[in-house]
């Protein structure tokens, strides 16, 4: 269905923004990001997250460090880099613009 495709496109853009948002205040373990995303029902299958994290990292917006955990092997904690913070700001502005645009249009009607 056409709507599915559009919905998926919308979600993907927002998903990237939301991943960065979860990292805004403190570094996060990837499984914790997943838990948040699943709570807000932004992702359907968990596998979606990993390629996206790797890409954001390769583009320089994210960094990570290994942290020992009490149970099991060390964990990968992701955090925003300086460029990542700027990028997030820009996305935030774009998001506000979009929200305003939608409100304006729906408000006018």
């Amino acid at each position, binding site marked *: 269905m056409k709507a599915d495709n559009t919905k998926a*496109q919308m979600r*993907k853009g927002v998903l990237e923004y939301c991943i960065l948002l979860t990292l805004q205040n403190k570094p996060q373990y*990837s*499984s914790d990001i*997943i838990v948040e995303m699943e709570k807000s029902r932004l992702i*359907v*299958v*968990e*596998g*979606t*997250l*990993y*390629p*996206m*994290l*790797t*890409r954001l*990292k*390769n583009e320089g917006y994210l960094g990570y460090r290994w942290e020992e955990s009490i*149970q*099991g*092997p060390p964990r*990968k904690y992701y955090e925003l880099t300086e460029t990542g913070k700027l990028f997030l700001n820009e996305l935030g502005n774009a998001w506000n613009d979009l929200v305003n645009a939608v409100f304006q249009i729906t408000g006018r009607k």
Partner: protein
Amino acid sequence: MKKTFTINISGSIFHIEEDAFEKLQDYLHRLSQYFGSQTGGQEILQDIESRIAELLQDKMTENKEAVTMEWVDEVTERMGKPEDFMDTEQTESAGGTATESKGEKIRKQLYRDLENRVLGGVCSGMGTYFNIDPVFIRILFVLLVFLGAGVSIIVYLVFWIVVPAARSTAQRLEMRGEEPTISNIQKTIQEEIKEVKDSFSKMNQSESFLKGREVADKAGQASVQVLKRLARALGIFLGGLLIFLGFIGLVIFLVSVAIGGSALHGNSGMFQPDVDLPNLLGFFVSPGLVGVSILLIVLIIGIPLLATLFVGTKLVFRYKTNNKLIGMGAFGIWLVALIITIAITAGQFNNFMLENTATTGKPIDCQSCKTLYLKSGTLPTSMDIEKNIDMDDFLVATVGGKQVLAGRPHLKLEATDGSDFSVIIKRKARGKNNEAIQNSLKQIQYEVNSKDSTLVLDQFFTLDNQAKWRNQEVLVTVKVPKGKMVHLGKDLDQMQFDFENLNNLWNKEMTGKTWTMTPEGLALKE
């Protein structure tokens, strides 16, 4: 009770049941096929693996320590299929490659199906490959065994050796995967063309040039895809042709080597060749070398034929082999065989070093004759010529049930000042020394008989059964007194005439006529 394996997923140890292990391995295999080639792919895989480890760890309790099928199902469902979570941006930037790799993932490959095998699983594998009941392929093979005198057994063995068996789950999946077959290819080509058309119409609608270029890029990739499919279809056609040629070539070749004309005389099969290779070789090389020569010929001719078959099957079917090893190995053996053959051939050369002749002559006792009548002797009527080994100077024939070498003698008519007709027979042969030459000369059988005014000439000379070919020749010269005449019988159609002033005439134009010996040479009697 179930067998379990111990595995290590990103640093954590698990006990996992056999079926669950296969399923998990298959899932990871598919993931690595998906991400393996892209940048950061290994990292993504590691991340996913550690997440899987984490999820499995959460499920472990004191009572449940082994990973079961259900757990794996649950985890893989939660993680999703690789095509579900391909990152969009990368999909777009990678363009057609994402769809292509999706196609590759389920690409059908030819495997030997061991689960449904009768012998090596070749037929069942082919059945799966073509989506038909293997019984039909088995029937086809058995039929070919009867028709092709067993060559399809060799073809089967080649497949058995060359085609890998489907052992792991992943291989079994590839074996059953979708795609090839010609109708599917046609379908895909149509789809691709439609896609290209759509892309173009989309491009026309969009105003932005940038967007347009991107679409054009995609269209370009799509047309590359179409070309690829066309190339594949062409490859299948070509491969089929090669298989056919290789197969027929092998049948004919092997039958002529293994069975030959001696064991099966007459019409014993579709592909009954007339050449009996071992026998034929005996005419050229010394007895001790016949076996070796046969082996060499088998290698020199057989390897390219097998290679044709192999390349053909590689074009038609998709299966994994160590091409390099097989190719280099076969080429190496072929090269060695060729070198040995050249060496042996070179060794045979000194058998042709020297030439000598033996001449016998006899007068024809017929002084009163004005015309000498030349007629054909019992050869060729009493012999059976092998049609496919018949060169001008030598041929293979069957005389009295035995295969022998034979040759066509040359006939010359020469003017003489005397008053008598006479005939001179000159035998020629080559050899490494005089003794060998004399021996070869003795082996030349040729008969000329005269009675009154008739000279009966055999139109072929033959060599004794044990004789080797040493470029033997026979020259028959008939001395004709000037003014007398010679009638060439109509049946003299096989001999080679060496008439100095008539060398542009066909035999047909000279036989059945009477010729007068004039001082200028032969002239047709008016």
